[in-house]
């Protein structure tokens, strides 16, 4: 049952963003930025936690999850250290994703050459 709900939610997000790209002049870069901001918004009001409970990996697979990771790290450290914790913890959870993306893309760029 969780497989079907993951399929539906992830497909729904992809379908809507494809519709926005077709209708407006957004590039995929704009769309990704918008989705991260929407993820931050949903996570700020604790809606995203419910979505993850309901749809499982279908909700954590889109780039919206990146915003959720940023917000949860910041709010967790705010409870611990006060105001300065916001800046300490903003990259606590999401930093892993950024580092892996940087390292893997650097290694791949060294190994492969562009094919035309």
């Amino acid at each position, binding site marked *: 049952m969780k497989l079907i709900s993951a399929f539906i939610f992830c497909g729904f997000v992809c379908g809507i963003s494809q519709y926005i790209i077709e209708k407006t002049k957004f590039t995929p870069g704009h769309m*990704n930025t918008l989705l991260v901001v929407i993820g931050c918004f949903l*996570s700020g009001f604790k809606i995203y936690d419910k979505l993850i409970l309901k749809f499982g990996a279908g909700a954590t697979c*889109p780039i919206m999850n990146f*915003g959720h990771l940023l917000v949860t790290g910041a709010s967790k450290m705010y409870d611990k250290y006060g105001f300065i914790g916001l800046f300490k913890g*903003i990259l606590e959870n999401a930093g892993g994703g950024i580092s892996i993306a940087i390292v893997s893309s650097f290694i791949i760029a060294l190994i*492969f050459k562009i094919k035309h």
Partner: protein
Amino acid sequence: MLFLYKTLKKENNNNMNNIEYDEIIKENIGKDNIFKNVFIAFFTGGLMGLFAQLLTDFFVNYYKININDAYFYTFCFFIIVGSILTGAGVFDKVLSICKCGLIVPSTGFANTMTSSAMDNKSEGFVKGIGANIFKLTGSIILYGVVFGIIFGFIRSII
């Protein structure tokens, strides 16, 4: 969010110089293409979500790790797969068919990063790869951090 939308609109207006060019584009692109593309994006995106769920279940059952860690491993697995496929040159061919089905999952994030690093490889390590690796994904990190601090504060005080 309004602020972001306004800046995007400004960027786009600078590029639209020719009205005739737009009309030619409108004539050539049919209306029924949109729904076909949306359906394809829905289907392929759904398959990605289904695969992510299968992978998460595998991590949880086989390696006996926490469910939140398993979600993060799946997220990172998609990033690594996306950058490897981009390097091999397969990703762009699949992307032209699936469109948003591969951009919205975290493979799209890896694809933009890797392709901007590979394109400028010939200019050297510092000026080429180092300067251009964040060319497109930098906006994701910038707005993610700025809005993340704001909404992280809101999440804590609610």
